[in-house]
């Protein structure tokens, strides 16, 4: 059985290394500030006791006042998983750093979120729409679309 690690415990481990990088944490997940997302993600991937080498999926949710981008990570070796989230405010040009350098499986998923939710992933080498054509008006999965 894949053990879902406590967000609170992982958050305290991260806080030791990167103070002031966690926005909030609960049993199920932890919210990382978007400017420290990359260093936290690299820490989660490379630390021997955590070793989150497998990215299950990325998704984004529109909560009107902010967008939440969610990453579920699994360690195939230790068989445990964690959900990390990051938030970006503002509807004009929301952006979070791309994790493609750590988990290449993020490639299409980040492009899909850019396409349908309009979140820019900075550092992605090929940030263009995946399903819809260039010039399509709006971002359909946003709550204020239609």
């Amino acid at each position: 059985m894949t053990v879902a690690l406590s967000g609170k415990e992982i958050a305290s481990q991260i806080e030791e290394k990167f103070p002031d990088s966690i926005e909030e944490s609960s049993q199920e997940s932890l919210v990382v500030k978007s400017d420290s997302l990359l260093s936290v993600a690299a820490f989660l991937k490379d630390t021997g006791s955590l070793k989150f080498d497998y990215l299950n999926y990325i998704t984004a949710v529109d909560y009107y006042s902010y967008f939440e981008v969610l990453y579920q990570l699994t360690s195939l070796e230790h068989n445990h998983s964690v959900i990390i989230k990051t938030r970006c405010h503002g509807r004009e040009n929301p952006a979070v750093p791309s994790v493609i350098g750590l988990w290449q499986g993020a490639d299409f998923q980040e492009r899909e979120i850019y396409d349908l939710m309009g979140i820019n992933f900075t550092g992605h080498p090929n940030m263009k729409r995946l399903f819809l054509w260039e010039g399509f008006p709006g971002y359909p999965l946003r709550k204020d679309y239609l």
Partner: protein
Amino acid sequence: MTTTEIVTLKTEPFVLNFGPVHPSTHGVYRMRATLDGEVILDIEPVVGYLHRGIEKLAEERTYTGFIPLTDRLDYISPMSNNLAYCLAVEKLAGIKVPERAEYIRVIMAELQRIANHCIAVGSFLNDCGAFFTPFLYLFREREKIYDLFEMVCGQRVTYNYMRIGGVSQDIPDEFLPALRKFTDKLPGFLEEYDFFLKQNEVLLARAKGVGILTNETAIKCSISGPVARASGVKWDLRKADPYSIYDRFEFDVPTAEVGDCYDRYRVRIEEMSQSLRIIRQAMSQIPSGPVRADVPHLVRPPAGDAYAHIEAPKGELGFYIVSDNSIAPYRCHIRPTSLINLSALREMVKGWKVADLIIIFGSIDITMGEIDR
């Protein structure tokens, strides 16, 4: 004696379009391949021709009303999609499924795996050049599974059979004898089929050592399912994170070491036998009782989010659902197995010839319905 000089010809790279409508792309899928003569330098997948906005449609439907749409994701294996979605809603709402329904679900999911692998292996051999002979033998077996599905839900392609809290109706009395007849006959067929193919010279020449996906790349690119297991990633959610009642059955997880097209073929053939093992155990253990929990027609899960995943025939299929305590999901994200399994295609085909591109692509086993959604 004259010495032979090796002259290297200089060629200009050019771009060739595969698809969107091409027999080898298994749907409306386009690849922009940059070629140097016959050698592939780079490819860029172009998708979205079948995009229907299913995730957006989910936000306007009731939880139960979304089940028929899940059939249209991976339309080669709708039962698995039904199962993954229902598990996610049940996790969100804390619904317990009756025992008999759990067994029926497992039987359906495993039959679906066999049916899917029939198509996957058959169309892969088609791509290899064994034009339609091995394909149709597998189609004949798949037809028998479809007869069984028709018996339980009246449908042959889009089943809409599972419900939140169970399944839509109990299996008819004649189902289990018919299933037993099917499971008795299939091993003999598989053995004979494999006997003709596993040492087949053409298949070995075309598939062995071609399109190697290394273990590290598979993990880095989030590859799952038979493609990952053929590369030596021993990861099967039925074992690693057992859902439903999979912890009650004995079965092996077939893996391979090299990660070439041939290994992906082998893993699928072996998975079919393992699925049969599970079905046999489920048939002998299935209890009587209700097949559906007492769930209101309009499910209102408490506010929150949940992710449930299953080992679908193509890999990890998951649903992430956010609820705001209304009758429709606030957000429903589908983890698309086929799309993510394509992440490594670029690295797999670089340096191979055009003819190999077709079979490497075919060996991944994708459905456009799930990629574009």
